[in-house]
């Protein structure tokens, strides 16, 4: 029944209850350590939340949300709007490409091609975000002359989130039973029509989950934005290039190193807002997943 673990397996069979108490004690010890590890992880999560939420919530007020940053004080309106704009741009770019790519890998590609594409997508998702940022900087900011801009930053974020959207789209389409597709094809539909009318409905919650995760990842990123978005004390405009844009993670990173209490407070408030948004996105994802996709 069991092979490959040799002596370790025989020990418990061979002894006649002599070493049993010892082994029992060892199991209890090991499980205690496991529970301690679990408790430690939970405590760390709580500690992170407390250390950010405690100080961050103090600074939260309607005024902070509706005032622009001025130097080391003021509010976060420009950063909040900037983050939202960047997410919007990157989702507009990465969303359609990602969903189409996922459709290809789930429905049209044969398994060998899909396998290769999946590997490549995974490798792209493993590329460090700062490398993508550097790439965006030399190509878009310098070579194409866009300067620090919403478009350069949005495209960098799109590159970063694209693999997640592709993979979640693919896996949620693959979870739809094969019989759905076969039934649609048997009715004379093309695979495109089948996708549009039959497959999309059960797969939609999964695809939306992927998009939300991508938003959550993109929103928390800093490294790819430092040298593509720049920073601006003013609210974003719809000018796509040659116009730096502010974002929330920048405030957390830079203002913490400023020697002013007002700057620290802004950093904590920005961090609190980020955690709040991540939390809301995670709850949305949970709700989407709970809904049974298939009857």
């Amino acid at each position, binding site marked *: *029944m*069991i092979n*490959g*673990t040799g002596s*370790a*397996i025989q020990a*418990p069979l061979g002894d006649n209850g002599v070493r049993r108490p010892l082994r*029992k004690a*060892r*199991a209890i010890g*090991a*499980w205690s*350590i*496991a*529970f301690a*590890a*679990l408790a430690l*992880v*939970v405590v760390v*999560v709580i*500690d992170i939340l407390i*250390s*950010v939420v405690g100080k961050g919530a103090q600074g939260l007020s309607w005024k902070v949300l509706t005032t622009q940053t001025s130097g080391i004080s003021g509010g976060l309106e420009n950063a909040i709007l900037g983050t939202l704009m960047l997410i919007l741009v990157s989702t507009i770019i990465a969303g359609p*490409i*990602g969903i189409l*790519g996922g*459709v*290809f890998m789930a429905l*049209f*590609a044969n398994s060998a091609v899909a396998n290769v*594409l999946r590997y490549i*997508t*995974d*490798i*792209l998702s*493993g*590329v*460090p975000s*700062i*490398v993508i*940022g*550097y*790439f965006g900087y030399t190509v878009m900011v310098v070579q194409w002359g866009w300067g620090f801009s919403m478009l350069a930053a949005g495209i960098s974020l799109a590159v970063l989130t694209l*693999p997640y959207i*592709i993979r979640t789209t693919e896996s949620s389409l693959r979870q739809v039973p094969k019989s759905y597709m076969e039934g649609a094809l048997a009715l004379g539909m093309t*695979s*495109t*029509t089948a996708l549009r009318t039959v497959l999309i409905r059960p797969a939609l919650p999964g695809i939306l989950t992927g998009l939300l995760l991508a938003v959550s990842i993109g929103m*928390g*990123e*800093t*490294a790819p934005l*430092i040298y593509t978005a720049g920073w601006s004390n003013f609210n974003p405009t719809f000018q796509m290039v040659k116009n730096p844009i502010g974002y929330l*993670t920048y405030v957390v*990173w830079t203002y913490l190193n400023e020697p002013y209490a007002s700057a620290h407070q802004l*950093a904590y408030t920005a*961090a609190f807002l*980020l*955690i709040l948004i*991540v939390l809301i996105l995670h709850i949305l994802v949970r709700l989407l997943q709970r809904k049974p996709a298939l009857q």
Partner: protein
Amino acid sequence: MKRHQLTSKMFRLATGIAAGSPLLILIVLSFVLFRDAMPAFRYQGISFFTGIIWNMGNMYANNPIVKNGVQAAPGAAFGILPFIVGTIGSSIIALIIGVPIALMTAFALVYKVPPSLAKIVSPVIELLAGIPSVIYGLWGMTVVAPWVEYGLGPWLSHLGHMVPFLAAPVGTGLGLLTSGLVLAVMIIPIITSTARDLLKQVPTLPVEGALALGMTSFESVLHVAWPWAKRGIIGAVILGWGRALGETMAVLMVSGDAANYLPANLYSPISSMAAAIASMLDSALTDFSGLSVHALALIAVTLLLITMLTNLLARLLVQFGGRRVGVEV
């Protein structure tokens, strides 16, 4: 009907192009980085990876010097060994601390925690994976670094007479150990959630068989479930390692941002390759010869190659990790 088929074909083509876009991005990315990195490699050669000094040269000089056909500021030297050591060192510390905790957590979650409690704990751990890295940096700076400075560091340094690397001075708390600790927390959710999913796929029968043969519950996990899920879990560990190697912001905030200096003890300030790119691009732009920016591209290429390799290895292990190893049902 004809038009219908045409749109169908067009749609298929569009999806194909979209699916190929990651490949296109990777090719363009590698091409641009290699092109940008070439001058730095021609100037510095292999000593780029073994040198300790990073010096952009004399910025007030009138004329750039020329070496191997590349213009550089006089006295420029680009050695990234401290960044390589910082990257590898902090990520190894993260693995040493994070992997046992992550695995034990997964064991507890799958085999011992009652499902009603696991339903609460699992999302909490997944939330840990979603927290932005600047917030880990913030937490590292304000909570972990002071703890290392006043608590853990002084305590560990008592062991200094046995292990010289642990000896004082502890410094400001910003450094190798703190980076490792923060990275450990960041990779735990990656490893725990993969290990949990893999352990759940282990067929129940062999585990119950092991119990019936008189194994304790932990022995059955160790000798039956673990061999089954081992390769996949190792893949997840390497995946987490890749994440730690490429992490920028958290390390930048808690590493002490050191350069030209190899860590003398566990608490020394360090910098990693990713953090170095982020922190030095600003100053590199002031280099009139432009070589410093090329040198940063060479760091990026190095980092890209390392993370690609670890990722490839990890994905291969995860993909084939679910296969039966040593257990036949």
